[in-house]
C-alpha cells in the first residue's frame, strides 16, 4: 500500500512499508505501535484467545475503555495465538522471524520469554515497556498511571500550594512511555537493519516521566531548590489562568518573554482601560518582585478588572494583533470547533463505532509532504491471517 501523492503523480512509498511489527502491548506501550502503523508498518497485535486486556476492557467497560481501544489500536491488525500451545508458539516463532520490531509489555505475552523471543528473532528490535523497567527493586511493583506520575515526579509539579499535588489527565504515563519507546525503537531499527542484528530495549515509564520534568532536576542539582507545584516562587505574576466574560484565558507576559507584557499594556491603554496605566507603575519592571505572592494577587486584580469585559475570542484576536502570549482555555469539546484546526482539516478523519455512528478522530500529529500518514479502524480480534 502507498500513500496518495497530492500532486497526483506516482505514489510515494510510506516510511515503514514492508516493515512487520508484532505488538503485544495493551497499556503503557500501546501508542508506540500506532505511530508506526499510521506510517505504513504492518502492525499485528498478537492476542491470546479472548484478546489482550485493553480489548477485553473495551468490550466489558464503558466509553473511556472503548475510546482508549479505538485511539491506541487504530491501523493495527489482530492475530490470535495461544502461546501456551506448542502449535501456536511455532506459528508465533515463524511470525517473529519475519518481524523487524516486537513490542512487549509487562504482564502481556512474551514478556517473561524474552530469551526465547530474541533467539527466534535475532534480527528484531525487541522493545519491552514496563512501569519501572525490567530490572531493579521495583521491576515487579504494582503500578497505575497515577502511581507512575507520582513516582516519576510530574504529579508533584502541578496543583496549588495548600492542596494535594495534581496529576495530569488522560493517561499521560501511557503517552510519555509510548512516545519515548517509539522514538528509540525507530532509531534502533536503523542500526538493526544496517548490521543485521537486533537490540533489546528496556523502557521504564517512571524514567520516561522523570525525563520530562522541564528543568526541575537541574534546579535541584545546580541551585539546591525544589521546584514547587504551581511555579510558586519561580513563575511570573502574569503566568496564570484568568477568568473572562465567557470562561478563562491563559496569559504569559513575563518581562523575559519578548514584548508580551508591553503589548498587553498597550492593548489595554488603546482601549482606554485604567488597568493599562496601573501596569506602567515602576514595580512592574522589578522581575524579582513579580515572582512574589503579593505581585501575583495585585496582577490578578488589575487584569481581571479588564478581562471581565471581554470574551475569549476577542482577547484571542487581540493576542494575535498585539503579539501577546495569551490564549483561550478550551475544554476538550471546544477543540472540534477550534478555527485553526477546522481550517487545517485536522478532524477530517472519522471512525465508525460499533453502533454504526461515525465520530471525528484526531488527525496526524505531524503534517508531512509528500504525505505519509493514514489511519484505519482497529482490526477485529483474530482477523489477520497469514494470507492477508
Amino acid at each position: 500500500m502507498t500513500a496518495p501523492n497530492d500532486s497526483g503523480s506516482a505514489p510515494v512509498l510510506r516510511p515503514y512499508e514492508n516493515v512487520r511489527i508484532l505488538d503485544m502491548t495493551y497499556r503503557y506501550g500501546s501508542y508506540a505501535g500506532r505511530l508506526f502503523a499510521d506510517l505504513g508498518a504492518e502492525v499485528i497485535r498478537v492476542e491470546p484467545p479472548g484478546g489482550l486486556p485493553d480489548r477485553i476492557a473495551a468490550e466489558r467497560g464503558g466509553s473511556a475503555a472503548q475510546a482508549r481501544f479505538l485511539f491506541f489500536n487504530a491501523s493495527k491488525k489482530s492475530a490470535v495465538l495461544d502461546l501456551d500451545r506448542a502449535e501456536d508458539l511455532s506459528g508465533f516463532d515463524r511470525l517473529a522471524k519475519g518481524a523487524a520490531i516486537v513490542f512487549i509489555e509487562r504482564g502481556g505475552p512474551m514478556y517473561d520469554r524474552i530469551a526465547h523471543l530474541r533467539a527466534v528473532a535475532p534480527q528484531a528490535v525487541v522493545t519491552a515497556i514496563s512501569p519501572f523497567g525490567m530490572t531493579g527493586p521495583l521491576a515487579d511493583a504494582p503500578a497505575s498511571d497515577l502511581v507512575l506520575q507520582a513516582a516519576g515526579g510530574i504529579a508533584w509539579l502541578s496543583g496549588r500550594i495548600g492542596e494535594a499535588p495534581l496529576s495530569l489527565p488522560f493517561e499521560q504515563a501511557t503517552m510519555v512511555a509510548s512516545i519515548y519507546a517509539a522514538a528509540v525503537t525507530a532509531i534502533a531499527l536503523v542500526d538493526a537493519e544496517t548490521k543485521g542484528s537486533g537490540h533489546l530495549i528496556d523502557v521504564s515509564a517512571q524514567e520516561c516521566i522523570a525525563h520530562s520534568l522541564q528543568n526541575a532536576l537541574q534546579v535541584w542539582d545546580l541551585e539546591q531548590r525544589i521546584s514547587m507545584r504551581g511555579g510558586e516562587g519561580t513563575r511570573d505574576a502574569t503566568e496564570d489562568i484568568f477568568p473572562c466574560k465567557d470562561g478563562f484565558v491563559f496569559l504569559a507576559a513575563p518581562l523575559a518573554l519578548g514584548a508580551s507584557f508591553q503589548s498587553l499594556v498597550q492593548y489595554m491603554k488603546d482601549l482606554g482601560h485604567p488597568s493599562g496605566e496601573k501596569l506602567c507603575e515602576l514595580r512592574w519592571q522589578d522581575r524579582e518582585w513579580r515572582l512574589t505572592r503579593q505581585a501575583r494577587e495585585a496582577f490578578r486584580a488589575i487584569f481581571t478588572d479588564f478581562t471581565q469585559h471581554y470574551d475569549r475570542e476577542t482577547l484571542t484576536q487581540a493576542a494575535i494583533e498585539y503579539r501577546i502570549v495569551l490564549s483561550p482555555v478550551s475544554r476538550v469539546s471546544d477543540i472540534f470547533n477550534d478555527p485553526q484546526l477546522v481550517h487545517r482539516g485536522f478532524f477530517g478523519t472519522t471512525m465508525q463505532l460499533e453502533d454504526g455512528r461515525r465520530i471525528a478522530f484526531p488527525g496526524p500529529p505531524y503534517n508531512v509532504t509528500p504525505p505519509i500518514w493514514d489511519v484505519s479502524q482497529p482490526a477485529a480480534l483474530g482477523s489477520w491471517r497469514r494470507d492477508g
Partner: protein
Amino acid sequence: MKPRFLEGVRICDLTWAGAGPFCTKIFSDFGADVIKVESTRRLDSVRIGGPFKDRKFGVNRSGYFASRNTGKKSVVLDMKSERGREILHELIRCSDVISNNFAPGAMERLGLSYESVCAIRPDIVYLSMPMYGASGPRAQLPGVGMTISAVTGLMWSTAYRDGDPVGPGTHYPDHAANPYHAAFAVLAALRRRRLTGVGAKIDLSQVESTTNFIGAAVVQCAMEGRDRPQIGNASEEAAPHGIYRGAGEDDWIAVAITTDEEWRRLAPFIGLDGARGLDRATERIARRGELDQVLGKWLADQDATAAAERLRAAGVPAAVVAHSQYLIERDAHLAGRGYWQRVEHPELGRSLYASPPYRIDGERVELSRPPLLGEHTREVLASLLGRSEAELDELETTRVFT
C-alpha cells in the same frame, strides 16, 4: 554505551528554547552530527533562563540548556548578514535535516523557506514546529508550552474541581509530546529518503501533536458529546484513586485501586477487610468520598516512603509523590538502574543528567556534554566547509561569528 546508530546523519539545527532542542537532542545522543546554529545577539532563551551553576548567570551555565543540548556542536553566526547566510547555506548543503521551531514566517524572513532550502539541498528533511502550524487563522497566535495546554483542553482538564482549571505546572507539551513526535517524524522522513531519495517537509503543529497526546479523551468526547468531569486525581473508572497526605510536611502518597483484587489487598490495611458493598468498582466509585476519607485518615499518620513500600509489598499500586530531590537522592530504584549520569563540563562542573529513559542491550546511553556558545564555530567551518585559518580570522574580525 555511546551508540552511533545515527552516525552519518547531520542536522543543521536552528531550534531554540524547550521543545525544538529536546527533539534534536535524541539525534545527537545517538551519534548524529547536530550543529546548533546560534546567535549571540538573540540568545537561546534557555541559555539565559536558569537554573545556573551556583546561581551565577552565564550563557554556558544554564542547567536547562544543558539538559536539552547534550552532544551537539554550537556554531554562532550572524544569520542576517550576507556572509553569515552564505555560510549557513553551505551548512545546509551538507546537512540531511534542517530544523526550526520559530513562529510561521520567520524562516521565510531569513530566506530559508522550504523552497529556498530545497534549492540548496533538494532532498532535505525540513522540520518546522510552530505552535499552531504554518498556516490558518490562528497561525500567528504567539505561544509557549502552556498556551498549547490551554487550547487543547489539557489545561482545563488538569483541575481539582468543576469549573476551576489549574493546568499542568510545567510547559508539559514541550517536554514529551512535541519533541518526540517531531523526532519520530524526522526519523520516518529520513527512512523514506533512504528508500526513495525523496526529502520531506514536516509541518508539526504543536497543538495538533498535543491533541494526539490526549487522543483517547478526544475520542471519548466525540463518542459521548461531553467532557470528562474535572475530578482531580480521582478516576471515573476506579476507587479509591488519589493522592493522600502523609505524616511529614508536604509529604504525599498516590494510591490507585484499579482492580477488585487490588481492593481486597488494600482493605485490611484500612479496616475494611470483608466490608460489604465494596467488592466491585462501581460500588467503590459510588462511595468514593467515604473511601478517600478512610484511606486518607490511615495514611495521615504514616511516613510516606514506608507506607508506599508496605502497600506495594502487598500488591497495591502506590508511590510517594516524588519531587526532584527525592528522585535524585532517595529513589533507590532509579539509582539502582543507573538512571543518573554526571558529565564534566568546563563551566557546569560535574553536573547531573537524566539518562535517556531506557536501557539498550542492558546498557545506558552515555551522554556527551552540551556545547559552549560558539565552541565549534571554527572547527565546523574548517573541517566541514574547508575554511582556512586566515579566512576564519577574517570572519571573526568582521563579526560574522556573532
